[in-house]
């Protein structure tokens, strides 16, 4: 369940020069969904959160026990404790001819490579193998050996490796861009359970963009529905149904539903 401490704050973020600014506060331990018809700005929004895209104006900052970090670019985001899973696995995710281990280990440079000037930058093979093995069990990833090229794995297993990659750095906030696209239903439910555990047991916060509406209804505490590159409506858990989401995506808001004004 979300705390009342804000971990991720969005300040007057504008996705296009003529779109309405977006401000939001995301509480620690929350699962926040992003919905919208394709091309309405939710993809640009999650990319802006990750630092991969520079917004037209406004910004994002992450606050936790170690301080408040403005997110100006992808490196900032990674250092502050954000992890981003891109949507197109084949295009932006896997390194097809490289082994599962190589696809995994760049997710945690600080942990898997020696640090410091004279002897920095060398691979700690044992640490990688141990960590990969524990993720293999945790996520029940199936591959022959860590050296198996990732392109030989099924789509679901590839996605699990990519998830393990971003989890390896033990981030504070997971930004998941359509994480179950091209994944079979069994794996999909395993991933849902894993996301829940990341929140409940590891205390992570999740921002989840999804084109599968059932997924948003099942997982999220709150959903931002995007229209015209701005947040059209925020739906709380108690009003989150397939129908309501669909209506909102097509631009029909339900004013009555907004009356409770429950604080986050």
């Amino acid at each position, binding site marked *: 369940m979300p705390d009342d401490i804000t971990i991720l704050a969005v300040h007057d973020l504008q996705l296009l020069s003529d779109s309405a600014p977006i401000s939001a506060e995301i509480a620690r331990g929350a699962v926040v969904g992003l919905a919208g018809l394709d*091309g309405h700005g939710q993809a640009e929004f999650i990319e802006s959160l990750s630092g991969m895209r520079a917004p037209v104006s406004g910004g994002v900052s992450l606050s936790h026990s170690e301080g408040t970090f403005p997110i100006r670019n992808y490196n900032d985001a990674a250092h502050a404790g954000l992890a981003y899973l891109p949507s197109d696995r084949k295009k932006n995710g896997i390194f097809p001819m490289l082994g599962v281990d190589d696809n995994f280990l760049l997710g945690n440079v600080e942990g898997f490579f020696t640090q410091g000037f004279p002897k920095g930058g060398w691979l700690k093979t044992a640490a990688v193998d141990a960590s990969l093995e524990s993720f293999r069990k945790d996520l029940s990833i199936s591959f022959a050996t860590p050296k198996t090229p990732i392109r030989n*794995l*099924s789509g679901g297993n590839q996605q699990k490796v990519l998830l393990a990659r971003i989890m390896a750095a033990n981030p504070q906030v997971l930004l998941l861009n359509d994480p*179950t696209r091209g*994944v*079979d*239903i*069994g794996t*999909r439910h395993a991933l849902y359970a894993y996301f829940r555990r990341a929140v409940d047991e590891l205390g992570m916060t999740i921002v989840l963009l999804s084109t599968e509406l059932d997924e948003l209804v099942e997982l999220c505490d709150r959903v931002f529905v995007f229209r015209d590159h701005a947040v059209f409506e925020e739906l709380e858990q108690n009003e989150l149904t397939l129908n309501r989401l669909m209506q909102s995506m097509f631009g029909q808001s339900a004013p009555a539903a907004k009356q409770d004004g429950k604080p986050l």
Partner: protein
Amino acid sequence: MANSPKSTSAAPVLGCRAISKRFGETQALSGVSVDFRAGCVHSVLGENGSGKSTLAKAVCGILSVDEGAIVTTEGPLSSSAQAAISPRMMLSHGVAIVLQEVLVVPNRSVADNIMLGQEGLLRGRLPRDEKNDIARDILARLTDRDIPMDALAGGLPLHEQQLIVIARGFASRPRVLILDESTAPLDLADRAKLFKALKSYCAEGGCVIFVSHRMVEIIELSDHVHIMRNGHLIAELSGDEITPEHLLEHLTQEGADA
């Protein structure tokens, strides 16, 4: 929603006999047999990764199958034909595909993109005006938008590129038109107009294979729905059976088994 129970008596124009296809460790298709009939919209529904796109690519000649046979109006393709299968060969059997990815040739005009592949190799170049006229006519069936025929396709917004790509599918006057997840970038007006065009194409005897995971669209459009999971064809619904409840039932029921 007019699902007149279109006959299963119409002649099949394309089919598969127990086709299988494997990629590495993934069995993308296993033993799929299906007939596609003239005058009907056949939808292929399934989760992502269920094998719908592989099926589409197999019947349009992009992929060769490991086992089984593709059947055209002239009977099953011979094994040598199957080994050398290509989109060009399937086009000669009247099968055209609109791919999932919106692929335009960026530095060619809209008309060139719509008429892609309609000219010969060395002979048969269409004069520009004639080409523009034909392309404009095809596009007008799909949309009310006025897209200039001489504009470079790469500079247009994605939904207009998508319309161009769909128009390209119609340009060869195919007997079978496959649409693989081709409606995503379209807005509601374009989508409605496209569906109307698809229905009138079927009324003239064409066959549409509509691959999608959008249930609403499938219910609106289909005469037959083929449901896929993990490379298997698990159910086939026709006419009045095509309701959200039925579809969901098949999708989820089999999901529990898998």
